[in-house]
Each structure stands twice: as C-alpha cells, then as structure tokens.
C-alpha cells in the first residue's frame, strides 16, 4: 500500500501537511470501522485503502465485519432497495431475522473504540452497545435516501437517532434528524491498481484475455449486476447508438457477498444481450482492479446509467482516467459531473444514447470533458480529501462550536 507522502505529487504538499496536522490532534484516540463485507462494493474498497493511511498517521484504527446468513442479507438487500424508494417493506419475519442477526453480531463484536464508525444499514443495530460504553458513534449512509420507503426509514430511524453523528454523500439525501449530519462524498484512490497509470501492454493484455479487439470504439459500464445500475437499459442505449456508429459494448460487473440479487440480474442481462458479438458481458471477481482499470482506459466512452445511486464512484474512476462519461443525473452523480463541462448527464435510455453518439462523433469535445473531469476529481473526489473530512468529523465529535481552534 502506498504511503501518505506518495500522494504529494498528485494533491500537493499542503494537503499532506494538513492531514498530518489533523491526525496529530487525534493522537491517542481509537477508531473502529464496521461494515458488512470485506471485499466487493465501494465501502469495502475505500476502507481497504483508508485503513493503512489512518494507521500511518498514528491513528489507532481497526476494522470489523459483521456476519450474517443468506436470509439476513436478503433482508438487508430489501432494506437497501426500500431506502432507494422500492415499495416492498419489511415483514415481521424480516425484522425478526434482522434483529436476531444483529444480536449475534452484538455479542461477537466488541465496539469499544473511542469512535465507532458504522457503515450502512446492515450493522446499524450495533449502536445498542453505545449506552453501556459512553463512546462516540457515527453512522455513515452510503445509499441514496432522498425518497425512502417510510416504513423502512422509520425502522432504521430508531437506531439512527442514537448515534452522535451521521454522514450522507449528497445534500438531497439529508433528512430532518436530531443528530448532526455531515456531508462527505466518497472517493477514489489514484494510486490503487484500479486507478493508477497503466502501460499500453497492460491494457492490451487485459483486452486480449477477454477476447476484445480494438477495431471499433468501446463503450463501457462497470458496475455490479444490480437492477438499480440498469445494465439492460445500457444495452438498449448501445443498440440505438450502433444504428449509426459502429461500436461495441462492455458490461463488466463484479459481485459482492452481501448482494444475493446479482445472479438474477446477470441472467436478465445475458438474455437481453442474446449472444450479440458486440456485447461483452464480463463477470469479474472482486479484486479485478487492473482489469477494470484497463477496460476503462481502453474505452472511448464510459457509461453509468444508474436508476438510483449512492454516489456512483465509477464515474470518478473514469473521469480520473480522462474519459468522457455519460451518466444518469441521480444520487451523487451530479456532484461529480457538471453537464457539458465535465461529462454528460442523462435522464433516459434515449438521452444516454444521444450523448454517447455525440461523444463518439465529436472526439475533441469528448477529450475536453475528460480533461475537465480529471481536474474536478483531483480537487474533490480523491482519497486524501475524504480522509481530511473524516478526521474533521472525528474532531467535531468533541466540539460542536461553529469555529474550532485546533
């Protein structure tokens, strides 16, 4: 893992100095991250990169992962979909399953750090330990809760209000709560295998392995196979583009251990692709970071046609590589793309198709969008900015004044 100083050429000296200064103010404090999966998905990915840097800065940080059976993760998937507005709520049986597994995790995980940082709804009930410990608790919501299913939100809310602070990724996710709500966007790591510079040979090797030729422009969406990422909509948009521009589509998706739905979605995608030779559906296992990097770098246009999105970090990944991006104006995506300046926002299959076609036909404009996007990511969506805001959040737990002298 790279050390903090290796980020200096990318973000500048001041950013690194400020991080070290903030960390020194937290000297002696312990921090405990808790989420539901160690691999797969954006949360695990960020924590994997962040933990070594917290430790390097002298913060005593550890990371625990809750356990649960298939039934528990079906319940949490229902919660996830309901937070995104799905009508299906929680039955009593589901609530019982959630509470029983949470109890088991409460017994297994000792949340005794000074600052306990819970990610997403799956481990939310661990906060029941708070009363007996008197430590500080943060709940980090990574999903779009701008229009949640009211029953499910109320169920979660009774846990949320017990926390000292919450964190949301976009202003529209904010709810009226009696606790503090920080606005902190997630981030990408420019030095991770998924984002670092690749040689031409590395890119060619990956394409060769997947049997993809560069004889026509490549359009790519990288996402878990999830209905909310609308992979079938991407295929429809691609078919509309191909009527006038010869091109090929890559749908590259990973799976995560806490998402039991991905296989169903993958089957639908295969059905929709219907053996089309220009549609490459790649099921790639967690950790295929160089592969994702290479596929994004080989693309002429990167797409993220989500229906709902917590933040949509694949957008920042593609922008960091200087790629023109066409993405839905949902969740945190408008925070990453200013329409026609650092990418193209769309609202429908037709909108996605029009923008992809326009970018393929206007490469100079596409390059300008990519260049602007890269600078936007440098300023707002890199790991160092994320770390800075987490350290500020930790400090804020001990002082709620508007202005704090460090």
């Amino acid at each position, binding site marked *: 893992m790279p050390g903090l100083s290796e980020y200096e050429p990318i973000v500048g000296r*001041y950013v690194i100095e400020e991080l070290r200064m903030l960390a020194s103010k937290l000297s002696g404090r312990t921090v405990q991250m808790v989420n539901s999966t160690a691999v797969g998905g954006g949360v695990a990915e960020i924590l994997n990169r962040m933990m070594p840097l917290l430790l390097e800065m002298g913060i005593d940080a550890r990371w625990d992962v809750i356990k649960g059976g298939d039934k528990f993760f079906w319940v949490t998937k229902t919660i996830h979909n309901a937070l995104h507005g799905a009508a299906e709520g929680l039955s009593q049986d589901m609530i019982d399953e959630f509470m029983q597994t949470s109890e088991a995790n409460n017994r297994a995980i000792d949340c005794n750090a000074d600052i306990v940082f819970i990610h997403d709804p799956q481990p939310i009930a661990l906060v029941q330990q708070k009363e007996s410990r008197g430590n500080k608790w943060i709940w980090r919501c990574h999903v779009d809760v701008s229009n949640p299913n009211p029953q499910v939100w109320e169920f979660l809310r009774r846990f949320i209000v017990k926390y000292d602070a919450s964190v949301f990724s976009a202003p529209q996710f904010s709810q009226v709560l009696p606790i503090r*709500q920080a*606005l902190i966007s997630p981030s990408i790591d420019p030095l991770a295998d998924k984002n670092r510079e690749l040689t031409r040979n590395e890119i060619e090797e990956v394409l060769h392995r997947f049997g993809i030729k560069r004889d026509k422009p490549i359009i790519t969406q990288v996402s878990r196979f999830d209905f909310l990422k609308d992979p079938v909509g991407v295929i429809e948009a691609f078919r509309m583009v191909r009527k006038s521009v010869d091109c090929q589509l890559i749908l590259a998706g990973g799976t995560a251990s806490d998402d039991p739905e991905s296989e169903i979605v993958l089957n639908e995608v295969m059905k929709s692709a219907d053996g089309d030779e220009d549609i490459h559906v790649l099921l790639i296992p967690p950790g295929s970071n160089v592969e994702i990097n290479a596929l994004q770098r080989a693309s002429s246009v990167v797409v993220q046609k989500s229906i709902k999105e917590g933040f949509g970090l694949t957008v920042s990944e593609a922008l960091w590589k200087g790629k023109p991006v066409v993405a839905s104006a949902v969740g945190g995506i408008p925070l990453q793309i200013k329409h026609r300046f650092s990418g193209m926002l769309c609202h429908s299959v037709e909108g996605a198709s029009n923008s992809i076609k326009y970018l393929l036909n206007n490469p100079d404009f596409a390059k300008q969008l990519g260049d602007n996007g890269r600078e936007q990511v440098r300023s707002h969506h890199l790991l160092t900015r994320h770390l*800075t805001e987490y350290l*500020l*959040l930790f400090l804020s737990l001990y002082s709620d004044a*508007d202005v*704090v002298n460090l």
Partner: protein
Amino acid sequence: MAEKRADNPFYFQSRLVLNELTGLRASTIPELLDHIKGVPGSVIYRHTHHFLEQHQRVVPTVPNDFAYWVIEELGEKRLGEKLAAINTIDFNSIRELRDKIAQVIEDYLRAYPQAASRTPPPGLEFHFMKSQSFIFQTQHAAYTLEEFCDCLMKVTLTSVYYHVFESRLRFERPANDFSRWLAGELGEKELAGAIARLNPYDHSLEGLREKIITLVHKRSLQLIGRPQ
C-alpha cells in the same frame, strides 16, 4: 526611513471545513424565506460565502447561493438580481446580513405575490447547509512589511480567505485581520485603510491576494527609500 518591526508578529492561520446538512429544504420562495429567518447564523454564512472558495481564481457572477437558486432553479431572475446586489461587505454581522436578505425577499413577495407559487424541477430544491470551521496555525509569521509580503505570496488562498472574510464576519471584528495588524502593530493606518477599502467580494481570492501584495510591497519600498 527603515521598516518598522512589530512586537507581536502576524501569525498566518488557515482553516479546514466540515460541511453539515440541516435536513431543511425549500421548494418555494416563502419556504426559503421562513428558513432564512430561522436557521442558525452559520447556515447564512455558508450560503453567502462558500462560493468564494469554490471559485478561487475567478469572480463568480452570482455571489450567493440564494440568488443562484432563485435564478437558476425557479427562473425568478428579478429577485435573483436583487439578492445578488446585496453587498456583503456593508454588514458587520451575519445577523444584519440575514435581516437584509429576508427583507429583500419579503419586499419582493409583496410586490410580486405570484412568485410565491413557483417551484423548481424535482430534486432541485434548496438544501440548507452549514460549515464547521477548524482553524490552525500555519508555519508563516511576519514581523515586518517585507516579511508580511513574503508570507502572503506563500500561504494558501484558504489562509487569505480566512483572514479577510471569515474572521471578520464570524467573530464580528471591525475589520479584516490584515488591516487590524498593520494598523495596530506597525502603525500603518493608511495602508490598513487601503486594504480595508478593497471590496473583497469583487475579486477572486487570487486577485485579492495580488492586490494586497501590491499595496504592501509599494509601501515597503517607500519606507526603505527605493524607487517604486
């Protein structure tokens, strides 16, 4: 005439910000007005200042979030122009600034009551936010005008922002930190006045830094008798 050396140096500080959400949102001008009257001062401060840091090298055309939302999302350009014309430098406290913004909106709603029913497209409501600032010392300190100039060239634009905007309004100080030190420690009342008279809201942060450096440098050369 030699340059004077201060007994107490100017310590350049800087700050980092944690953005906070309030959960409050407005879909109409009356809702916007209600919240403007009721939210903490830190919310008003954020929505009238954060754009300055976002646009470090250009002067934004619409100088506060309220004006921007009213123009861009509600299409109520006349009110937007009136809000944009509020001169923040004229106010010594957030309370006075808030009162002025509320008064402009109230007057407008009285004159154009139909504006009250305008709504933005879904998802583009106004979200009220605030900032918690964390102030810290940088490694830069100045005892003389020359050192002051030298430090100004090296510090981040965030440091310039803090000493010119934030410390004045958030601590309700009569002038920006630079002017107060120059007058108080070096007796440079004229120079301090010239810096205080610059309307910082009319400049980008980089432009403002350059203006201040020019004024200080000119005075520094004058004191040591070199041609300007």
